[in-house]
């Protein structure tokens, strides 16, 4: 049991899999000599050499597609797309190729491909560098999506992704990269797509994922101060989603709040709200409440950036209104 940062945990996971299986290769921009923009691949270039830790040109569409072809020919590539934002250039490779080839080939080809991409709102990176892509990828049959919120999950889920024979997208969060947490490299990992109850409570259920799950935990403490006992579920995976863990909780609490960093309109939270309404309708005492980003691109201005993304306080205030049956004011322009 060690304290590691999120990036160190990812680094250990890569190292462990590369050491165990020499068909595992890593490729992306500056993953090698430079050591990775977020240090995740640090040291691997010196250890495994330029062929297995490949620095690429700025050609997201093709080096992601290269990963697809390599996976079909027997390798287990781990493609790093420097940030989610650049994945918009690789969506044909991800959606039309990686996700569909096993299906289109009648199941002849597996797709042991892992695609890592840090994303989300960091510090004033503005509209083109602060995006979320979960809603887009969730709708794609053939992809699996993990969203680790802790160093331990980052370690476990990246290793599981590399070992999986399907295409797994690892959505990291840029602001989590330098956060610390205990990592046990020997403990058995839970199934990659199992949700976990990070805090149990009986007044309402807060469902969240990635960094926002940690924000929800902070909110839960604030709520405790107001005498509201919130249960916090970290989904850990957005495709598939572990509905049962959520259903059990919502049926107990009767209230559901979804906290996400994604834009509210057609974001990941929409599916969570819709599916849990179908499954828990009669247990729900109020409609599921989505606390999400405003439907705006990220502004560069610091104050505005904070305003459009849910803060722990926003989650707490909304949760309070929800359980007390008050109306929640929504910034909603669309």
């Amino acid at each position: 049991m060690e304290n590691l940062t999120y990036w160190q945990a990812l680094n250990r996971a890569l190292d462990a899999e590369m050491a165990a299986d020499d068909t595992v290769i890593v490729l992306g921009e500056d993953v090698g000599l430079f050591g990775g923009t977020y240090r995740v691949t640090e040291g691997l270039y010196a250890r495994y050499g330029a062929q297995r830790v490949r620095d690429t040109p700025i050609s997201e569409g093709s080096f992601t597609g290269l990963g697809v072809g390599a996976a079909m020919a027997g390798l287990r590539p781990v493609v790093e797309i420097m940030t989610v934002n650049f994945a918009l250039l690789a969506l044909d490779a991800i959606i039309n190729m990686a996700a569909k080839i096993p299906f289109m080939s009648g199941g002849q080809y597996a797709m042991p491909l892992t695609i890592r991409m840090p994303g989300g709102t960091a510090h004033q990176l503005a509209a083109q560098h602060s995006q979320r892509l979960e809603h887009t990828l969730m709708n794609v049959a053939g992809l699996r999506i993990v969203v680790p919120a802790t160093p331990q999950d980052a370690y476990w889920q990246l290793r599981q992704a590399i070992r999986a024979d399907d295409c797994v997208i690892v959505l990291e969060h840029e602001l989590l990269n330098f956060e610390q947490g205990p990592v046990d490299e020997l403990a058995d990992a839970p199934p990659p797509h199992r949700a976990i109850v990070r805090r149990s409570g009986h007044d309402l259920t807060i469902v969240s994922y990635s960094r926002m799950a940690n924000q929800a935990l902070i909110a839960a403490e604030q709520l405790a101060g107001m005498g509201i006992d919130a249960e916090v579920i970290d989904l850990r995976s957005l495709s598939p989603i572990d509905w049962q863990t959520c259903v059990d909780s919502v049926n107990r609490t009767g209230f559901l709040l979804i906290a996400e960093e994604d834009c509210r309109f057609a974001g990941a939270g929409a599916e969570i709200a819709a599916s849990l309404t179908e499954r828990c309708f009669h247990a729900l005492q109020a409609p599921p409440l989505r606390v999400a980003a405003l439907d705006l691109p990220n502004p560069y201005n610091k104050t505005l950036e904070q305003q459009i993304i849910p803060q722990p306080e926003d989650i707490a205030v909304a949760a309070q209104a929800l359980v007390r049956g008050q109306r929640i004011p929504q910034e909603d322009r669309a």
Partner: protein
Amino acid sequence: MERELPIQFLRDMLRARRLEERLAQEYTQGNIGGFLHLYPGEEAVAVGVLHAAEPGDYIVSTYREHIHALIAGVSMRAIVAELFGKRTGCSGGMGGSMHLFDAEHRFMGGYAIVGETYPVAIGAAYAVMLRGLPEAVICFFGDGAVNQGTFHESLNMAALWQLPVLFVCENNHYQIGTEIHRHSAVTEVYKRAGGYGIPAEKVDGMDVEATYRQTRAALEQVRAGQGPRLLEFETYRYRGHSMADPGTYRSAAEVSMYTAQDPIAAEMRSLSLHYPDPETLHALGLESCETLCRRYLDHGHLDTQGLEALEAEIQQEIEDAVQYAQAAADPTLEDAWHALQPNWPHQALV
């Protein structure tokens, strides 16, 4: 060149031609759905190139890939069954005409999004390079596909890392209805490989022996670890872009533009957009199959009885494949879920 090769070339070109003439009929009779992109006129490329390949080579193709699959060794039965959407088709009935796959023959698929074959090919080549094997990857694409960004990105990486890929451009001068001089600033495709330092040549794609010779030479260099090569095959499609391609209203639009077109260009387009009659093709020296037959008859590679026997045998093979496909069962929804993620059933996901 070995004595039997010419006959094999002719045999495969006729198999290709007759098969697709039959597929066109089956399509109009509703036994084949979706888009059907046929190959008549371009057979010399697939036959020459793939005869020059080794069994260990990987092949990556487009939506116009029936013949690539056939010559690569995929059984005619599995191909026709796939076009009929059957469970025993080479893609289990999930892929159809544009998505033939056969892992056993390293036929890595037909791709229907123009420009996807490049990254898949360099990916397979990357695996070959890591394993240090004397294998090559053959990547097919058309003249229109050259303008997709993946061409640029992938050729740069192939050259940068000296990957064992042979890029095969089937230049039939058309991107559906757009002629090459209207889609590319530089119309000699092989010249565009220069921007990546990739050795490239232009080859007469209507001459099967030339395509075979040139491909063999290029593949030797590729296998020897000398990096990627590109070959541009000048060729020609006799039919519309696809069976769905209605020639009808196009002529109208053309007429209103004819004045702006030079006669040869117009001639070429009308050829590719309508079904040209054999005379016109001979006049232009374009009828690859028949030209080849005549040449071999003259050279005494075969005699008329031999040719008739060959045609009969081919008819037999096609009949058998079509009957097999007709008799085969449809895939089930279970099959579809399994094809989605062959591995899931064995894994506890949640």
